[in-house]
């Protein structure tokens, strides 16, 4: 036996099926499966599902593009309104305070102010009298400043 095993090749072994099934197993199996398929409840898809199936792939990128477009334009539209609303809530005093603290005064601003010197600007608008503004301008002596 040992000698036979040492020389044996796969091709020497007969292709015999060593497994067995219960009697009439393959006669009963289709019926058992069919009973289970009744429980599985096959529901065929309606005709329009099958008809729309090839369109699904094509529609997906279009829908995505549409959503992106709508979101983009909605945001674009909302943005200026939001700014207007925000500015409207700021009081004049706060705006003047902000400008006097952070705004950089440039020569063009001063030149513009000079051109307005003959007009009586309301104290409410400039928060200074025209005389005080003139004095301030004289103090800086624009002509002597080298730009």
């Amino acid at each position, binding site marked *: 036996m040992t000698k036979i095993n040492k020389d*044996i090749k*796969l091709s020497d072994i007969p292709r015999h099926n*060593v497994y067995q099934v219960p009697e009439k197993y393959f006669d009963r199996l289709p019926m058992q499966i069919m009973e289970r398929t009744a429980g599985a409840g096959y529901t065929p898809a309606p005709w329009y599902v099958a008809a729309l199936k090839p369109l699904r792939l094509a529609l997906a990128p279009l829908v995505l593009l549409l959503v992106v477009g709508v979101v983009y334009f909605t945001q674009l539209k909302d943005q200026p309104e939001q700014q207007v609303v925000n500015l409207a809530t700021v009081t004049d005093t706060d705006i003047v305070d902000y400008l006097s603290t952070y705004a950089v005064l440039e020569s063009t601003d001063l030149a513009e102010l000079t051109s307005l010197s003959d007009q009586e600007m309301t104290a409410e608008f400039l928060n200074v009298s025209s005389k005080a503004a003139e004095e301030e301008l004289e103090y800086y002596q624009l002509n002597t400043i080298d730009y």
Partner: protein
Amino acid sequence: MEDKELLEKFANPDSRNLAFNQLIRKYQQKIYWHIRKMVIDHDDADDLTQEVFIKVWKNLENFRQDAQLYTWIYRIATNECLTFLSSKRKKFFLPLNDVAAELTEKIDSSPDIGGDEIQLKLQKALLRLPDKQRLVFNMKYYDELKYEEISAILGTSVGALKASYHLAVKKIEEFIKQD
């Protein structure tokens, strides 16, 4: 009945059940034996065979006819086998060798497994192989499928399948020569 005719009948609600019954009768033995050689136990093979055909029933409508029907059913059966063996290992925290040992024990003790000593030894040798290599061996050696057909079922290249089969034969012959 040809597969094409079966599929046409299945598409018709009036003849669906009849067509599916014929489909089961046509493929049940091939699928059952394919599964049985992998899981060894009859009850497991019976459960898995039924599961395979339930999946075929549920998905046959989506079957694309660019593949052959039996290739598609074989693929479902193969996946069921691999999932079953994998979950068996995970469920009982068993390493590969312990599952092989358990199945080997079934070969020795099960009343519905018979054959002479060398044939039983061949079955035990097969259990030493990794699952996928055992699948390749069974499909080539027992089911006598072509490499191209096995390739379509497993999604593996023909070259890799040839190498896997020849390595399996070598391992089996070495195992049989032992003792």
